[in-house]
């Protein structure tokens, strides 16, 4: 049990609260500025000027304690000390956007009415000044009756003053100040009065953001820009990453060859080269692509464009019974369904939220990228279709599109059946545009890379080793193939009865089992299987892609891709869906419908490809 006192950061969405939290604690946390990104509990430790420490939590942004979404509910409960397992905070740091005081002061009244020791961080004062606002901090402090510190989180301005104010606000036990309670209308009137009093100069300077929005939210050009942006994003994933991927691939190959030469022939050497280096190495090479994908998503979030994308997508989402708000969790799901599903907490309507959770796994997550990448590299020729557009990138784009279309159709069906309910609205603040801070993007990318490498080092590593053991025992009789004789071979034979009709071979059946742990293990499994199989051949030196292109028919490869568009193949996603829906009912439903879709579509793909003579 820590003796530190507890500090909670709270404020309206888009107050720059998360950026301030990062600078105060140095914690690794994702920053974005669409409403509702801070849905996880984020904690850190703050070093105070007097050498003591405080535990800081960053609460989800809220417009009021009168909660209308699950994440606002979290904020209300924590602040009131009603959140199970979460100690009541001792000091509140109320973060206000200096450029939008009239709005942010409304919630401030509600927070101050609690009578808890509070410090106000008047954040983003630089942007307010740029917008032509001049603010009087003294007057604000007097009006609110608490210390006010001017801060610019992204430039570290005012941080020391804020820390000192937090330390000074540290309460004697149980001190509550009595403050008048007001209703919502009174709070708004009071906010307006205070804002009027302290903003002593405004200029009518037209904001840069308005001009940007005239283009980016243009009814015709806006959607086109979004589409081009998404297309560039997927092209970049392939084109920019290629040299780095090749370099990593080469390094893994040389490492394998070096170990092969340096060690005497033994069980351990085979485990190292065929199991670990071939398996884990084949997944790690996709790190550059995953980083590029996350780079785009993080920049879209940090600049404020993501909320515009939600605005542009609302019409389409409304067509399938959802709202633009679902677009943000769904786009995050392209990186990983887990943060995507957690981000649905900002969706107020329960039916809307459930539908979004159920279709999130259809968004092509970054773990599917290694699978797509290796199959595309093996079977789709590297050809230029038009200036700057490669065939491989186009196929990748088509796979993503298949997932999106599948998700939209499934949403439409679900909204008419199992998640039937009243039409939901779409009300969303479009935050001001901001230049993303290089440091914050770098921290975000580092986190993603680290999570991916940790998965490679743990889940993928163990799955690969277990598979290698299952493939290597029992040892084959002379004249018999090792894969045929092994335990894994027998399991795959069983599965193959079901999967053969849709064009899958035994190696695929074999790869699908460990891929339940994490999708990208499918690639590692194929690499390990073929490495063992190739023991006697000279084929070992070749890359996985060229091995596959020799051994699989094109219809099989396409069916395999179709399977991965739909199949629910990550246990963590199922686990997080269980947590977010409070039970096994919906995750079971999700897994069932996804497997059914995967089977049917892989089958259709295979049969059509065969019929077309591919």
């Amino acid at each position, binding site marked *: 049990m820590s003796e530190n006192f507890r500090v909670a950061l709270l404020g309206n969405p888009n107050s720059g609260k998360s950026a301030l939290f990062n600078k105060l604690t140095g914690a690794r946390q994702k920053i974005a500025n669409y409403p509702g990104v801070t849905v996880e509990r984020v904690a850190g430790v703050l070093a105070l000027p007097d050498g003591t420490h405080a535990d800081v939590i960053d609460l989800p942004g809220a*417009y*009021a304690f*009168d909660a*209308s979404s699950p994440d606002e509910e979290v904020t209300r409960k924590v602040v009131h000390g009603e959140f199970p397992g979460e100690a009541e905070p001792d000091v509140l740091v109320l973060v206000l956007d200096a*450029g*939008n005081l*009239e*709005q942010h002061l*409304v*919630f401030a009244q509600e927070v101050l009415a609690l009578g808890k020791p509070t410090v106000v961080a008047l954040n983003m004062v630089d942007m307010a000044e740029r*917008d032509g606002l001049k603010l009087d901090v003294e007057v604000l402090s007097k009006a609110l009756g608490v210390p006010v510190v001017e801060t610019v989180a992204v430039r570290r301005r005012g941080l020391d003053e804020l820390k000192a104010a937090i330390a000074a606000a540290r309460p004697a036990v149980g001190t509550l100040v009595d403050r008048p309670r007001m209703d*919502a*209308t009174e709070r*708004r009137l009071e906010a307006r009065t205070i804002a009027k009093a302290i903003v002593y100069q405004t200029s009518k300077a037209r904001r840069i953001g*308005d001009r940007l*929005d*005239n283009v980016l*939210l*243009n*009814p*015709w050009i*806006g*959607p086109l820009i979004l589409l081009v942006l998404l297309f560039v994003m997927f092209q970049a994933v392939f084109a920019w990453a290629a040299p780095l991927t090749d370099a990593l691939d080469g390094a893994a190959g040389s490492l394998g060859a070096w170990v092969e030469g340096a060690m005497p022939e033994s069980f351990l050497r085979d485990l190292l080269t065929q199991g670990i280096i071939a398996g884990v190495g084949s997944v790690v090479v996709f790190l550059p692509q995953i980083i590029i994908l996350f780079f785009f998503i993080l920049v879209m979030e940090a600049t404020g464009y993501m*909320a515009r994308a*939600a*605005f*542009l997508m*609302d*019409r389409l989402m*409304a067509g399938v019974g959802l709202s*633009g708000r679902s677009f943000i969790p769904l786009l995050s799901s392209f990186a990983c369904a887990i943060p995507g599903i957690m981000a649905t907490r900002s969706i*107020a*309507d329960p039916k809307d939220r459930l539908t979004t959770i159920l279709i999130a796994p259809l968004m092509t997550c970054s773990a599917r990228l290694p699978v797509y990448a290796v199959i595309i590299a093996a079977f789709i020729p590297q050809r230029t279709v038009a200036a700057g557009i490669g065939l491989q990138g186009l196929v990748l784009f088509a796979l993503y599109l298949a997932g999106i279309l599948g998700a939209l159709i499934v949403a439409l069906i679900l909204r008419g059946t199992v998640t039937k309910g*009243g*039409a*939901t*609205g*779409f*009300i*969303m*603040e*479009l935050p001001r545009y901001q230049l993303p801070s290089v440091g914050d993007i770098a921290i975000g990318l580092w986190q993603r890379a680290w999570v991916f490498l940790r998965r490679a080092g743990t889940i993928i590593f163990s799955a690969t080793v277990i598979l290698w053991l299952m493939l290597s025992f029992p040892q084959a009789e002379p004249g018999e193939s090792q894969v045929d004789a092994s335990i894994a071979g027998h399991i795959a034979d069983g599965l193959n009865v079901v999967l053969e009709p849709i064009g899958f071979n035994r190696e695929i059946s074999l790869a699908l089992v460990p891929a339940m742990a994490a999708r990208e293990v499918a690639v590692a499994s194929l690499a390990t299987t073929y490495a063992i199989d190739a023991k006697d051949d000279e084929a070992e030196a070749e890359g996985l892609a060229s091995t596959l292109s020799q051994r699989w028919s094109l219809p099989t490869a396409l069916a395999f891709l179709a399977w991965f568009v739909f199949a629910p193949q990550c246990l963590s996603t199922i686990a997080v869906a269980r947590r977010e829906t409070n039970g096994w009912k919906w995750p079971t439903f999700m897994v069932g419908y996804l497997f059914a879709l995967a089977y049917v579509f892989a089958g259709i793909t295979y049969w059509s490809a065969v019929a077309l003579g591919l």
Partner: protein
Amino acid sequence: MTLEKLKPGTSARIARIDWDALPPADAKRMRALGFEPGVEISMAHHGVFGGRDPVAVSIGRMTIALRKVQAAAISLDAA
């Protein structure tokens, strides 16, 4: 006139809001964002293609996206 009919770039004052026509959650959120009679509001952007749905309005120093059905509950003073 109701809000969704306001032309982009023009502004008006909110005369009354038909709170009962809105789902309670929407009404709550709109109140929290400062929608109330007497407030100056302007149409910032129309939604995609010809459908103009959703719309983005400027209220206070914020830009808020909302759908036409929600905007239709907001009546404006004649300019």
